[in-house]
């Protein structure tokens, strides 16, 4: 096998739950005397999982909470021993699962770099060679000779990340790393990871962040109840994952911080976001069609109601809030259930996570019947091509040169 190959064959991991695990000799002895058997309740965190990664491949792992993602990472990093099956990994593994684990608070950053490197299985000379690079990447500066107990949590994690990625592993295991540090450092992390990809290293990424997962990985698997239920290219697996989230009630409407108010004569039952194929989901592509569907029920006939939605970005407030004034050929909304649609030809939002509000107001636009504030979260992925630039949304135009 070439360095960087990852092979899992029918790997299973079992946990024993609620068993009478005696921590004391007395309990064990007395239990044995009384003929008690420890009550063992089995839970299979992984069941017959098979994976094969060739050097240079990047695999994204998706799954709901408790589907076995973390156990998989722990089995891969050899922290847990599987109860069945075979795990073979060639070359060195670096795990970005627990950054800075093993840092000792009383030792300086410098001493901890060597200690941490050693814990990851690297020789002193290897670390010595990379030392300057590690420090400069982490941005710790002169603090490197201070004990790490004076570090902020950000510095701590930055140094940990820096050690892990600089010791030149063949296989990189990542768990939601993109939540690390400030946005500037996150960008550096991303670059580093793409760097790994270019150099043909193997990557295994566990993430809820579908955007980065799709950007980094060329393969994906979906875990459910410890089993691989779907395997393929990320754009094939992601919809399946979303369907799973939808089916489980973990729909687009998740934001616990959202608020709802209104008099209730008309109620919003649900809001569906449909992609260009018409299937509901929470991930869309920039520049492609998207449809917002508001399902409602009116208790009585309502005179000229106004429908409105608004898009919110992180930390920037309302991006745009279209409403239906003068747009609907409607005088009275009859009692009963119905549906109002807002169709977007080309989604102008760029890569990121956004929230949607939906509301129904009276004809004056002052009295709310039902208002769901920022209740629906969705993600936008990079477009398949065409638009170049940065920002939150696209302003289309034409470039010309003249002299």
């Amino acid at each position, binding site marked *: 096998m070439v360095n960087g190959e990852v092979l899992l064959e029918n790997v299973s991991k079992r946990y024993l739950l609620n068993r009478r695990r005696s921590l*004391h000799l007395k309990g064990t002895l007395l239990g044995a005397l009384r003929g008690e058997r420890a009550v063992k309740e089995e839970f299979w965190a992984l069941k017959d999982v098979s994976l094969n990664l060739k050097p240079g491949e990047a695999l994204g792992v998706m799954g709901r909470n408790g589907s076995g993602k973390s156990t998989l990472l722990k089995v891969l990093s050899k922290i847990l021993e599987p109860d069945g099956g075979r795990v073979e990994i060639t070359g060195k593994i670096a*795990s970005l699962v627990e950054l800075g684990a093993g840092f*000792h608070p009383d030792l300086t950053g410098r001493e901890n770099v060597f200690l941490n490197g050693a*814990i990851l299985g690297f020789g002193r000379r290897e670390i010595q060679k990379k030392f300057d690079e590690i420090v400069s990447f982490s941005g710790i500066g002169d603090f490197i000779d201070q004990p790490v107990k004076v570090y902020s949590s950000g510095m701590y994690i930055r140094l940990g990340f820096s050690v892990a990625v600089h010791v030149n592993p063949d296989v990189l295991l990542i768990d939601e790393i993109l939540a690390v540090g400030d946005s500037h450092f996150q960008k550096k992390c991303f670059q580093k990871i793409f760097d790994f990809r270019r150099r043909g290293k193997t990557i295994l990424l566990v993430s809820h962040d579908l955007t980065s997962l799709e950007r980094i990985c060329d393969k994906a698997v979906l875990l459910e109840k410890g089993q691989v239920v779907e395997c393929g290219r990320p754009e094939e697996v992601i919809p399946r994952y979303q369907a799973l989230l939808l089916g489980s009630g973990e729909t687009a409407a998740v934001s616990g911080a959202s608020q709802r108010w209104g008099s209730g004569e008309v109620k919003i039952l649900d809001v569906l976001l449909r992609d260009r194929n018409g299937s509901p989901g929470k991930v869309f592509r920039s520049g492609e069609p998207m449809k917002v569907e508001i399902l409602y029920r009116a208790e009585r006939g309502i005179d000229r109601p106004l429908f409105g939605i608004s898009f919110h970005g992180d930390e920037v407030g309302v991006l745009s809030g279209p409403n239906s004034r003068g747009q609907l050929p409607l005088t009275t909304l009859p009692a009963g259930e119905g549906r109002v649609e807002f169709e977007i030809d080309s989604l102008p939002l760029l890569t990121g996570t956004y929230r949607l509000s939906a509301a129904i107001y009276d004809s004056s636009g002052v009295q709310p019947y039902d208002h769901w504030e920022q209740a629906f979260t969705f993600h936008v992925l990079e477009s398949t091509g065409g638009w170049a630039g940065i920002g939150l949304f696209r302003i289309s135009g034409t470039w010309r040169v003249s002299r």
Partner: protein
Amino acid sequence: MKGKTRNFAELYGYKNLLGEFLVRDLKLKYQGSALGFLWSLFNPLLMVLVYTIAFKLVIRIKVDNFAFFLLSALLPWTFIASSLSAALSSVVDNGGLVKKIYFPREILPLSTVLFQLVQLLLSYLVLLPFLLALGSLGVSLLLLPPLLFLLTLFVLGLSLALAGLYVHFRDLKHLLEVGLQVWFWLTPIIYPFALVPDRFKPFFYFNPALFYLEGCRGILLNNRAPGVREWGVMVFWALLSFLLGWRIFADKSRRFAEEV
């Protein structure tokens, strides 16, 4: 068997970590203390003072150079006792690390024992000039390193077993405390083996510590090398303890991350 050799090979690959752990522990122990290593001598010296009062002045035991007599065996005994107590909780104390990162778990008890060995060697180094002045040293001193090697192997085996079992059975801590007390008094450390009545001596021969400590004492105090039979016994106990301890630890370590 293949698994075991791979185990050793892997451990060798992590030798740097062993060194880093050792350096870390030494640094942490002596960081910010002005007297540094001398503190490690304080405890045995205090013991010597106390035992001298009790045994030499009060009970009037007939032993020449009582202080050196005592130290020559008390230092290796301290090595045994401190190693076992420290190694016992070495895995549990590093639970955070064990749950988060993979490395050969053997490193944990191994580095604690080596740390104690360094302490022993340093104390012997301090004792050496005095023994030279006393004129008790001779060529048999060359046999001290192999003897200490066997002693370390013996202690390492026990340490591995204790560290592995302690993850399940926390009662071991109390058992060990009591056990060490009993072991200490039933080993000729404060009293010479010669004082043990002949009819009890056969029982004493079951105590492995007897051979290691008597060996040290003979070499340092009387320039007397252990005989072939003594070497045989020491090799036997060292190998038995090490192999058994290694097996137990390897078996228990499979589920450390879940149980620690």
